[in-house]
Structures are given as structure tokens and as C-alpha cells.
């Protein structure tokens, strides 16, 4: 990155960080934002803290031009939170684009004393942010898949010993029997508890 842009971003970092954080937290209901915005205590304000630390690290990393793999865990910590907050995929990663806008605005606001920033350098910086957005999208999808996987695997784990028992009873081939038992058990569980996200009353499955 061009040194001039780097220096300027460094100088502007506190302002950028504050604006970025505020804009993300603004998306919470007004009554809540005040409480959630706390960033001091990692444990009693976990959402505010995690987001703050995450975006702080992201800005730093972008300026220092660290490889994207190092930025990934930071994105991960933020996006995992958003992935269970029922955003649409685009809403979940939109926060990344705020950074672009804020940086542009901050640079525009600069006094002439700083001179002109090379347009090419700026656009290179912008495309890095785009890459972050793409990575974010992947993380978001992974997290969502994980949620679905957890729903299914929990049912299996909870009934592990029942599976074991059934499988002995039927003495089938290893593969065949576990498939058989799992299908049956899940069906049974489905009926018992309406697992797998189906409303038991809509499906009208019935134990009787």
C-alpha cells in the first residue's frame, strides 16, 4: 500500500473505528443499543466487546496488509453472532461495506495539508474490503450450515445408547443397520418431539 495512504489511515483510525462501531450498533433497537454498546467488559458485554475487538483488528490488519487468513478468525467471531440473528445473507455481511464508505468519507474530509491520496491506492484498498466481504459471505454460509447440522446431530447423540441397543437387536451389516436405525430413530424422535424443524401439528405425524 502506498505509504501516504497508510499513514493517513493510521492517523484516522480512531475516528474510523468509532464510526464503524456506531453504525453497526445503531442497527439494534434504541432501548437496547446503550447497554449492548459496552465494550469494556469482555464477559458482561460480550456482543459489544466481540464486535469492537473484531473490527479494531480488521482495520489494523488491513493497514498492516496482513494476509487474509489472519483476518478470517476476526470475521468469524463477528459473523457467527450475526448468523444466528436471522439476518438475510446480504444483511449479515453488509457491515463490511460500511467500512468502505466511512474510509472514503474520512479521507474526503481531510484538509488539503495532507495532499492528495493516489486514486489507484485507494481503489486497491477498496478491493481488499470487497475480498473481506466475500470471505464473510462464506463464513456466514458455513455458520448457517452448522446450525442445521447441530439440529440433526443433537437428536442422534441424545439417543446414542438406544441406537446401540437397536443395532444389536437387528444384527445387520454395520452400515446397513446404522442407517436403518438412525432413520427409524429419527422418525420416532420426529414423532415424539417434532424435530427437524417441522411443526408436528402441521405434519400431523402421530404416535398413536
Amino acid at each position: 500500500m502506498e505509504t501516504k495512504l497508510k499513514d493517513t489511515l493510521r492517523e484516522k483510525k480512531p475516528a474510523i473505528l468509532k464510526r464503524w462501531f456506531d453504525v453497526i450498533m445503531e442497527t439494534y433497537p434504541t432501548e437496547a443499543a446503550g447497554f449492548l454498546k459496552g465494550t469494556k467488559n469482555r464477559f458482561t458485554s460480550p456482543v459489544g466487546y466481540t464486535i469492537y475487538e473484531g473490527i479494531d483488528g480488521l482495520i489494523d490488519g488491513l493497514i498492516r496488509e496482513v494476509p487474509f487468513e489472519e483476518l478470517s478468525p476476526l470475521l468469524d467471531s463477528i459473523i457467527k453472532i450475526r448468523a444466528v440473528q436471522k439476518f438475510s445473507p446480504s444483511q449479515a455481511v453488509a457491515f463490511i461495506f460500511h467500512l468502505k464508505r466511512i474510509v472514503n468519507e474520512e479521507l474526503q474530509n481531510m484538509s488539503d495539508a495532507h495532499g492528495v491520496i493516489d486514486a489507484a491506492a485507494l481503489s486497491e484498498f477498496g478491493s481488499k474490503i470487497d475480498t473481506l466481504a466475500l470471505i464473510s459471505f462464506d463464513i456466514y454460509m458455513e455458520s448457517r450450515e452448522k446450525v442445521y447440522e447441530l439440529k440433526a446431530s443433537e437428536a442422534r447423540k441424545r439417543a446414542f445408547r438406544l441406537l446401540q441397543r437397536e443395532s444389536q437387536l437387528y444384527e445387520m451389516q454395520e452400515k446397513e443397520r446404522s442407517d436403518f436405525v438412525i432413520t427409524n430413530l429419527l422418525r420416532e424422535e420426529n414423532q415424539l418431539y417434532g424435530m427437524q424443524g417441522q411443526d408436528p401439528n402441521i405434519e400431523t405425524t402421530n404416535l398413536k
Partner: protein
Amino acid sequence: MAKTPKPEELSKIDYKLPEKGWMDTPVEFKEGMYCHGARPQYLETVDFPNPRQWSSKKDEDWKLPENWKEIVLNGMKERLEKYRSFRLFMDICVRCGACADKCQFFLGTGDPKNMPVLRAELIRSVYKRYFTASGKMLGKLAGGRELTLDVLKEWWYYFYQCSECRRCSVFCPYGIDQAEITMIGREILNLLGLNTDWIAGPVANSYMRGNHLGLEPHTIKSNFDFMAEDIEEVTGIKVEPTFNRKGAEILFVAPSGDFFGDPGTYTCMGYLMLFHELGLDYTWSTYASEGGNFGSFTSMEMGKRLNYKIYAEAKRLGVKWILGGECGHMWRVVNQYMDTWNGPADFLEVPVSPITGTRFENAKSTKMVHIAEFTADLIKHGKLKLDPSRNDHLKVTFHDSCNTARGMGILDEPRYILKNVLNHFYEMPEETIREKTFCCGSGSGLNAAENMELRLRGGFPRANAVKYVHQKYGVNMLTNICAIDRAALPTLMNYWVPGVDVAGVHELVANALVMKGEKERTQDLRLEPLPEKVGAENV
């Protein structure tokens, strides 16, 4: 052409509330945040009102009786008269806000109606309108509001987003206990048949067959056979538990989750090994085969009905006292309600440990001892031979379950046990443990699958503290003394802190327990290889 929204517009859509006050903002049912409605046959099994097919999704007809409003208001009236605490909690909140950011569901969702103060206000506003003079006259000006269908749906949505964990009450200068308000709120909802399927199912099963899944005696027995086989493989010792044995000295009651679901089964193997080693004269029951009590998440009356079987079975079998396993809400029920509901258990004796002679004065009324107290007492008296190095592959932290910590004050016993059976123990930060512990996010019957997002969000503050000790000390095992924890925390860890496993305390006790006549152990209870002994190759 439609205008493409800017990113900042997009990200605002979903969760910014309209600028209206909370009272006028109707509840929005968000996918993943609520459970299915209870199916009719479950309600019929326990003679609950209004059994019918219904869906809890918003906008659908909930098929309520015509006079539902009257039923609710009468229900409130009755409970205001019966429970002084309820009326007090309705009257004394000064809106100081001390509780506002103490609920993990608020911290994880950012939804203001998950602030304890506002959760209470959902029902308090109706109390004001119908049961106070100012509210009757001034209505909204005095904080009152009409009871409408929207209000009812809001109750249902938010009283099933509270895990009755009591964390907020620790910080309230007046000790207002939102858990009790939620319990009463749910009780009133149940007058209209408004339970969740996940709670109503275990209630019906427990009522008919004694445990949540409705396991019958032969199934329970054969699950134990499997565990006994694994124990024999690990130790070379054959444990022979008895069931429904008359004349045993002690009846042991555990949460049924420990019978069939991992990692609870390892905890159960731990109980079996410990009792075998002690030569304890005890029996399991296939009738009182559930320590948990989903009835207590439904109504006081249902909690009482399910709880009754424990004393009934103790009486039938003629035992002297009752020992209880690692369960959370079972102990809240025992500690707070059992005595008034179904006591006094005069036919039992004050529990005395047959091994140490310790008389458990704290249990002299209920006659029921928590296994953490029992085992801590054994260790204190040097009655167990322990080899903590067998747990050297584990870096362990302890999650205080809300019910045992805040509901009955069992804080030190499990820690004392853990420090004696393993070498690497690390506490999570002080503001997240003991009486300030964060809930797993799945308590009070919220551990269904369809509300996974709620659970993951409510469990985030807990997971966040685990992540800290995981990163700082390499913690890889999260221990607890609660069956719902053992079912829910693995999922929570899998999402937020991969690399951390979950175990009951007695699993680790049994790992370390040196048993008479055992073979040299090479595996832990999970049949994983034990860590190499330092310097073993030089011996």
C-alpha cells in the same frame, strides 16, 4: 426498476424497532426463536385444558376458548391472591434498570423485551390495567394496557424465551425474581392449552411411564447392560446394579438423560462405578426413573404431580433415604418445592452416609441428598482412592448450572471434587460463575431443536467465557452437574468454541477412581486411550 438498497439500508431492515413504544410494538415471531405448540394428545394425557391441533406461528388461529380473556384474568387474580410474591413483584419494581443487561437472552438477542424489567412489564402492564385502581382509571397513563390476543402471543413468545435462570434477581435490589414471574406467566398460558410441544411431550411421558422419553423398564435395563459392558472393558470389573429392589437402604434417582444420551451416559457409568466400589446398598427405580421435572416448567400443579412419584416409590420400596444424581432443575424442585408439595416425608430417615457416618442435616426435611454433597463428603473423609493423573489429558473448567448455583447454593462441592480428581482446573472469569453464572441458554424446557437460534444466542455469553479459558489455558473439557447442560452444551461448544467437550463431574470421578481388583486402565470411560504416564517408558 426497483431501487437497489445501499448496504447500510439493508443491514438496518431486520432489527431496528419502529420508533413506537414497546407496548404498541406487536410481537414478531422470528424463525428459530420459538418452539412448536403442544400437540393435543400430550395435553389430554394429563387432563390439561384446550387440547387441539394448533400452530404457534404468528397470525394463525390459536383456537382459544371464547372466554379466554376471562380465563386469563381469573387465573391472574387467583395467583395474585395465592402467591404473595407475585403481587409483590408486580408492585415494587422501581425501574432502576439494574437487571436490564443481566439476562443472557437480552445480551445475545438485543431484543429489549428480553430485558428482565421489560419481560416482567409484559404481564405487569396487564396487572396494572385490571388490578390496580390507578390503572383501571388512567389506563396507559398509569402503565396499564388492554389484554389482547397480541399481548397473549407476546407472553407466549417471551415467557418461552426466559430460561427461569434467576440471574437477573441476583442484581435486583428488591430481589424481584423474574423466574417466578415467568413460571406464573407460563402457568396462566397453560390454562388455555398454550404449552410447547417440547415441554408437553416429556410431561406426558413422565406421567405415563416415569421418564421424559417414555422408556419402559426393559429398555432402561438394557441401556444399563451396555454401560456395564463398557465399564467391564475399562476396568475388568462387572457392576451389577439393581432395579426396583425392596428393602434397599437408598433409592437413587438421576435424570433419565443420563441413561441413554452421550455424554450423560458417561456420568451414569460414573455413578455405577462409584456405588459399586463403595458397596452401597442402593437401588434404581424404573418407575421413579426421572429426576427432571418438565412439569415444573408448566405449572406448580403439574410439577407436584410428577414429583410425587419419587416419594411414592421410596415408600413402596421401603428405603431409608434418597440420593439424587447430577441434575439441575430436579434440585431446584427438591430444594424449593418438594417439601411443601409432597412432604413431609416422615416415613424416611434423616440421611446418613453409610460410609462416613455424616448426617446430612441440610436434608433432614426432604430426606434427599445431592450426589455432589455425598461424594465431596467421601473425599473429605479420605474414603476414595484416587489417581488424578488419569485425567491429565483434560484441562477442565466448571459451569455452574443456574438451578444448583442460584436455586440451591451448591457452589463449592463440585469444585472440591474436581480439584481432587484431576490436576488441571481453571475457573472462568468471576463475573460469569457461581451465583452470577450465565445460563446454558437451554434451561426450563428451551432445549428443543426448532429454537436453535435462540439457544445459540442465549448461550453466547456462557460460550464466550469458555472461549476465554480455552484460548488462555487450553481448556478442553467443560464440566457441569446438570443433564440439560450435558445435552445442550455440546451443541453450544460445537458452534461457538469447537475443541471443547462436555462432561458430568462423576465421569471424571470414575476416571480417577482406583477400584479394588481393577485391571490396569488404559482407557477412560469414553474408551479413549489414557494419557501416557510421565516417565512410564523408563520404568
